[in-house]
């Protein structure tokens, strides 16, 4: 079994580096386009100058100062928010799909998104204002992580039933209760409150500010780093919990850590920007078709791909119907859905199983 026999295995062509280059090119293009395009459209040169202007003390013409303000104060924070939200949701989707061994799992599977929605609805309808302007995101964050905690505590996976199906069933039950409560509050809401709820439930990055970027960026970097660190045990979970344990994965502890990190990441993304569906479900799926299921590649590719998708969706959201903004969830579904269908169709034609 030496080099001679190794040569007998003809490896198929590895497309990973091509996918990586394509993704990097699209990412950069979308990033600069998002900064350049909007109510005030800028050329690539304007963007570069405006970006550099912040680091130099040379005197500026009034037009240049305006460009700098647009780029730095309006667009950049928003683009970075799109990157943070997209990367968080997509990597959490990949992690939850790995944990539950189900390509249909999405980051909200353990109740974070629906919990956060309920929190937001409570804040709006019950007119809670404990934390001033921060009440809505704080309420959504607490309700989101709290819901996950309740589901986990009730299911107690790893105790007797010792598997994920219990977690899913308890999740469905708790989500139903929360959904009913949210529905009741929505029923009580005034017309004005309903409008702001609709906005939240379909997602928008309009509230992006440097302070929110500053809060969520470190959290996101640490969280995605941890998910990447758990890439190998996530791979082994594909064999099922029992076999993963045979191979050295402490499934109970891994599950607890994955759920905690996912809840924090998703809650952070969702609380500021509303629920943005589709990203966490579809992005990992697409990359599994392109580069295979191994999480060491899947997690970074999903991070970049999720960021790209949300940047593009936000760009469309704020430029298609100026001066008003289309909710990002609408864009995501109407553009992402057909694209996803096309991917499924294409993969079947090439004989690749979509999972």
């Amino acid at each position, binding site marked *: 079994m030496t080099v001679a026999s*190794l040569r007998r295995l003809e490896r198929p062509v590895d497309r990973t580096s091509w996918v990586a280059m394509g993704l990097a090119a699209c990412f950069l293009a979308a990033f600069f386009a998002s900064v350049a395009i909007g109510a005030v459209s800028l050329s690539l040169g304007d963007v570069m100058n405006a970006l550099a202007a912040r680091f130099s003390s040379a005197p500026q013409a009034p037009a240049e100062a305006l460009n700098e303000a647009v780029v730095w104060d309006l667009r950049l924070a928003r683009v970075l928010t799109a990157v943070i939200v997209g990367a968080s949701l997509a990597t959490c989707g990949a992690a939850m799909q790995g944990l539950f061994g189900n390509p249909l799992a999405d980051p909200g599977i353990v109740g974070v998104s629906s919990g956060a929605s309920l929190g937001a609805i409570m804040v709006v309808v019950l007119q809670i204002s404990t934390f001033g302007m921060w009440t809505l995101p704080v309420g959504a964050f607490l309700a989101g992580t709290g819901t996950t905690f309740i589901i986990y505590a009730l299911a107690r996976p790893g105790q007797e039933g010792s598997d994920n199906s219990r977690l899913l069933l308890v999740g469905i039950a708790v989500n139903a209760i929360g959904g009913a409560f949210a529905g009741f509050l929505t029923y009580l809401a005034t017309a004005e409150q309903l409008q702001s709820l609709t906005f939240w439930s379909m997602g928008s990055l309009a509230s992006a500010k440097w302070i929110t970027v500053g809060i969520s960026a470190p959290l996101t970097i640490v969280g995605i780093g941890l998910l990447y660190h758990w890439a190998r045990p996530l791979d082994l979970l594909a064999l099922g919990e029992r076999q993963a344990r045979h*191979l050295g994965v402490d499934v109970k502890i891994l599950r607890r850590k994955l759920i905690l990190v996912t809840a924090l990441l998703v809650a952070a993304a969702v609380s500021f920007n509303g629920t943005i569906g589709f990203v966490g479900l579809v992005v990992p799926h697409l990359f599994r078709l392109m580069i295979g299921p191994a999480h060491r590649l899947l997690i970074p590719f999903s991070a970049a791909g999720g960021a790209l998708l949300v940047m593009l969706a936000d760009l469309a959201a704020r430029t298609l119907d100026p001066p008003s903004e289309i909710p990002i969830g609408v864009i995501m579904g109407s553009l992402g859905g057909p694209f996803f269908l096309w991917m499924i169709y294409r993969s079947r034609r090439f004989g690749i199983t979509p999972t």
Partner: protein
Amino acid sequence: MIEIRNVTVTVGERNLLHDVSTTCEQGSLTALVGPNGAGKSTLLAVVAGDRQCDRGTVRLLDKEVSRYSVRELAQIRSVFPQGSMIRFGYTVEEVVTMGRAFRDLPPDGDGDAVLDAMISTEVEHMAFRNAQTLSGGEQARTTFARVVVQATPVVLLDEPTAALDLRHQERVLTRARALARAGATVVAVLHDLNLAAAYADKVVLLDDGRVAADGEPWEVLTQELIERVYRQEVRVLEHPVRGCPVILTT
């Protein structure tokens, strides 16, 4: 070495295992046989550390199995499970390599070990195929290759030959016996008494959660014992080539 002492497993009112004791020596292959529901897989699960016994002890390499961490257990025992399946489209080679994922061995030996295991189970020609598209027998061979790659001193096989054709049944058990000869302690749950007779150094016959007989193939696989435990008439002949017992139903 595996020491099983007075192991009892109870579910509700029913004893799945009742006061089971036996010892599997290092360097030997032990076959666990018995009718459906006799407790073979339960015993294997207790030895593997998958399930706790209500009474009794299981010691792997002179330490109680429950005192090992998950990671430590992966260093000393590998398990071929019943009904293995894989989610997502990992390739056969990736699946086999998973056997080494948390094994504290120098990683530069992984490639050769994986290739060697794939060649010996004859799956190397499908190394880059999606493991989900394999047939049941091909999947079982892939799983067996993964067990071989884990290279542990204790090897537990739960019906490793159930899905295999004649040739691969013999190949898998030949390899399992070779692992034993190289110093491993191998335990295999087998349904085919003739395979057990041909390959096992020792046969443990379970009947309704109890050890009905425990010894060399000629001692355990007798007409009287088999007829009593399986409630099926049989004749026991001598294998013309191997010299081991051959069991024929009548």
